[in-house]
């Protein structure tokens, strides 16, 4: 039984990583055509740093990701704090409204926002993409913060009030630090969703402005520039190292706590 489980894990693992392996291999492939192996090269990595289009798309992706995640985190946090004070019934109603962009299909969200922006006379471009990303990021932030806020012990906050702190001060110095992990998780999730979004960006972007995903989609028809494989390989290993460090630290932390106990 133990072996069956390990084989099962291995098969799923292979399924998840097969295309990633292919992409990494392609980033070292001397030929610019995929599926046609002509030798190993680091050429694409070198070219990557001189590619203005990719640099442009990358900076759009990063700035839209950070800005939309930041604004969504702020809006989501304020809304969560307010929703905690609502009656159970109203809170449920509000939560179902906040969830609409997640539950709705991306294509519908994208088209509906495009219609709104064009109706308002807003030129489709950087700002419209940013607004659209905030729209679908807010629910992810709320999803992360709300459970922790609901589980929060009110008595610390009340103690701070009794000791003479203003509600705002008490919130900032007692509640906010408690919420830090879920705020961070919400921000990170929002950034990830923004960076990987294609469909909503596709409908709300204008000519001339591209994020990495829309740039890739445009290249799909004419053949992907291998520099793109090089970039995603770098991103992948960057995240891999980050995640591994996180896991190792967590492990050390758990061990440390066990020793203390």
């Amino acid at each position: 039984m133990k072996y069956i489980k390990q084989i099962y894990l291995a098969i799923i693992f292979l399924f998840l990583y097969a295309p990633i392996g292919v992409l990494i291999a392609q980033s070292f492939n001397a030929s610019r055509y995929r599926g046609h192996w002509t030798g190993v090269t680091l050429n694409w990595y070198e070219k990557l740093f001189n590619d203005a289009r990719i640099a442009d798309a990358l900076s759009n992706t990063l700035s839209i990701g950070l800005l939309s995640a930041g604004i969504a985190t702020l809006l989501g946090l304020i809304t969560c704090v307010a929703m905690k004070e609502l009656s159970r019934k109203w809170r449920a109603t509000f939560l179902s409204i906040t969830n609409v962009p997640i539950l709705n299909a991306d294509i519908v969200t994208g088209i509906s926002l495009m219609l709104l922006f064009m109706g308002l006379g807003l030129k489709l471009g950087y700002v419209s993409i940013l607004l659209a990303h905030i729209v679908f990021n807010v629910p992810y932030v709320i999803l992360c913060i709300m459970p922790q806020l609901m589980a929060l012990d009110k008595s610390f906050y009340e103690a701070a009030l009794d000791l003479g702190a203003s509600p705002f001060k008490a919130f900032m110095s007692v509640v906010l630090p408690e919420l830090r992990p879920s705020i961070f998780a919400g921000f990170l999730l929002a950034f990830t969703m923004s960076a990987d979004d294609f469909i909503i960006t596709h409908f709300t972007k204008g000519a001339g402005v591209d994020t990495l995903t829309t740039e890739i989609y445009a290249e799909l028809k004419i053949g992907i520039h291998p520099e793109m494989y090089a970039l995603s390989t770098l991103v992948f290993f960057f995240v891999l190292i980050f995640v591994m460090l996180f896991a190792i630290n967590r492990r050390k932390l758990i061990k440390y706590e066990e020793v203390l106990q």
Partner: protein
Amino acid sequence: MFNRGVRNILLTPFLIWAGLFIFIPLVCIVWYGVTDYDGNFSLANMGLIFKHGYFDALELSIALALISTVICLLLAYPLCLILTERQRDNTTIISLLFILPLWMNSLLSTMAWQTILEGNGIINQIMRLFGLPDLQLINTPGAIVLGMVYNYLPYMVLPLYIALTKIDKRILEAARDLGANSWQTFTKIILPLTIPGAISGITMVFIPALTTFVISALLGGGKLLLIGNIIEQEFTFHYDWHIGCALSVILMIFIVLNMLLTAAFDKSHEEEDF
């Protein structure tokens, strides 16, 4: 925490936000969907769904989305069971390794499946090594299902995994002490306790699978059209917003139906429990 006045002030930004960016856009879609080019009320564009090509696309979308959802469910349950029963130490790293592929751009990894499945692709090259005949893998409904399962499996795994970790281990021990075998423990305890997780997983997989146009464009070779492809073409090729919106409204009907269905299932299950 705050008095009502402060609460309402804090609630205002979101209410304005939701009105402007959630409610009005949906009204726009419905408006375009039920009017003709002169702005008069008309259901003619919605009726187009019964036209030959459109209806086939809708049927194919529903079928492929259902198949993908079932496959995701069948793959995710054993995976999550194995992951949760392991020791805490290892689980963190192994679980992280299962989330990691999410950070690879999904367009690129779906395209990598092209390289694996196509006529001269990796699988066919391996087949040739063994002297076996080539397989037609790319541009088939199967390839689209594979792409859907690949892209959306994490959305099934995550809620299921969370639901499984929440089960009190003592309940499982109690079941075992009372003489239940693994299968009985699974069907009588684990399955009922994880149904809410499974339901949110089903919604999270079914909706994007039903409405995607990217996966079918990449792995269907432009011949297998899903309803998402048809809507996308209405906007980017034909510039016919009315037809595009009418078809989107039909998609929304399916989304709402799916939500009502899962909500009803969720509720009936809760009542059973308490």
